[in-house]
């Protein structure tokens, strides 16, 4: 350390009070006792990212010294709080204290001896979960969003989403959820890829005609993002497997093509308390909503009975503009992300409709039916008809 450095340190020591790790430990313990309303002390770690990653004091926030002036006002807006700064040995935190004083913070304090002394005293520390270098690069645009951040990205990586169908809606949804790093994606689809699917079902390709869609989806997704584990189910969802399959997932994305499956899924999801992100399409138009058990209406509240086949043709019978399920499937993917991250206002109790020809979005209010046989006051969702015999033959 040269003369100028020593002089800076001397001045900093005169200006900025210092607490020993024991004092900090005691003050934090008192604060913990006082409860969440009495949080007067904020602990700020000013070390570099790699130092933070090797371990830090529990409850500390991380603002590297180099970003202090730029980030501290967002991290700690209240300048009357007591800010305890620490670094590795107590030097950088002392200089950081003078910076905070210049910025108008009333009580910056430097922890003498830093994190090294804290650890030497045997006080607790945590090692944060860290992303690999490849993950840091891949998810950098997510990490930059405050509502997602590194914590949100880990939440996504730990999340499990089940897609009912790897078709028009399931394809774009699965592709983007996989890109976003949703760690486990289950896909149930018993069909094989046909040429007529390729106009919209972008998970598949010409070479995979004849292959099971769930397997084709796995190949595409794993090539896109090795962080994602795909669990294919080559079967149809029915009474015998629905409870077992949905039990393992956080959110279910319904991209099926027939009413019996939609009613079956609705009832099983209510019993298992799983949110269903619902979407459907017809030619140039689509609709979506979120059925969150007991917080909003369910599918039977919205449609107590299915329409007769002539009013509910499938894509195979009526046609669909290939891009349209792309729009609706991606809106479903956004709703899924919101549910997984716990952010925003999910479409619970709201039906969003899109008219591609008009270029119009509309929204309709949905209500819970207190008499609903699936989610009402005297409901028995385990024992309801799914209208299997009543509906059009499922089509691809």
């Amino acid at each position, binding site marked *: 350390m040269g003369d100028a450095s020593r002089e800076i340190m001397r001045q900093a020591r005169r200006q900025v009070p210092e607490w020993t790790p024991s004092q900090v430990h005691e003050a934090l313990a008192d604060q913990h006792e006082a409860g969440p309303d009495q949080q007067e002390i904020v602990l700020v770690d000013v070390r570099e990212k790699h130092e933070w990653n090797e371990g830090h004091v529990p409850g500390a926030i991380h603002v590297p010294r180099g970003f202090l002036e730029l980030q501290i006002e967002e991290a700690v807006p209240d300048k009357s709080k007591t800010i305890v700064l620490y670094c590795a040995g107590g030097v950088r935190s002392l200089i950081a204290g003078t910076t905070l004083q210049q910025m108008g913070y009333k009580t910056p304090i430097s922890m003498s001896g830093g994190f090294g002394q804290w650890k030497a005293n045997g006080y607790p520390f945590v090692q944060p979960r860290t992303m690999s270098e490849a993950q840091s690069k891949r998810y950098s645009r997510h990490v930059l969003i405050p509502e997602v951040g590194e914590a949100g990205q880990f939440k996504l990586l730990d999340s499990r989403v089940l897609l009912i169908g790897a078709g*028009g809606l399931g394809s774009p949804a699965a592709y983007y959820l996989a890109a976003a790093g949703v760690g486990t994606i289950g896909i149930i689809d018993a069909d094989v890829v046909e040429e007529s699917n390729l106009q919209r079902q972008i998970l598949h390709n010409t070479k995979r005609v004849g292959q099971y869609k769930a397997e084709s989806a796995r190949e595409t997704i794993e090539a896109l993002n090795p962080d994602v584990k795909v669990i294919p189910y080559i079967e149809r969802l029915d009474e015998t497997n629905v409870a077992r399959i949905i039990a393992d997932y956080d959110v279910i994305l319904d*991209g099926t093509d027939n009413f019996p499956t939609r009613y079956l899924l609705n009832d099983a999801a209510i019993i298992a308390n799983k949110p269903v992100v619902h979407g459907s399409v*017809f030619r140039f138009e689509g609709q979506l909503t979120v059925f969150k058990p007991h917080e909003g209406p369910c599918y039977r509240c919205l449609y107590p009975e299915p329409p007769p086949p002539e009013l*509910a043709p499938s*894509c195979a019978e009526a046609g669909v503009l290939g891009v349209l399920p792309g729009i609706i499937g991606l809106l479903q993917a956004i709703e899924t992300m919101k549910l997984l991250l716990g952010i925003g206002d999910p479409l619970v109790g709201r039906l969003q409709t899109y008219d591609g020809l008009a270029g119009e979005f509309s929204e309709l*209010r949905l209500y819970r039916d207190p008499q609903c046989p699936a989610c009402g006051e005297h409901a028995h969702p385990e024992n309801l008809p799914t209208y299997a015999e009543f509906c059009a033959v499922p089509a691809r």
Partner: protein
Amino acid sequence: MATVRLAPVLRTFAGGSKQVSAQGTTLADVLHDLYERFPALQEQLQPDGSLSRFINIYVNDQDVRYLQGLETTVGPADTVILLPAMAGGH
């Protein structure tokens, strides 16, 4: 006159129109006016007199089942939306 918007599958019963105007101060009146011109719609919307269980009717953004059903007031600036469930996803 109120505006009535029809879901794609219902348009064949209304001469292919996506949107039509209809007169009336209640939903019952508006539908009656529609049936005069498009009798086939009645079979879909009110097969036995009461409202169909599989076609939802909204006045503006509100489901009439949670308003006053057929007695729901409809003003000249209101939009009535006829929307059955859609199944397509594949």
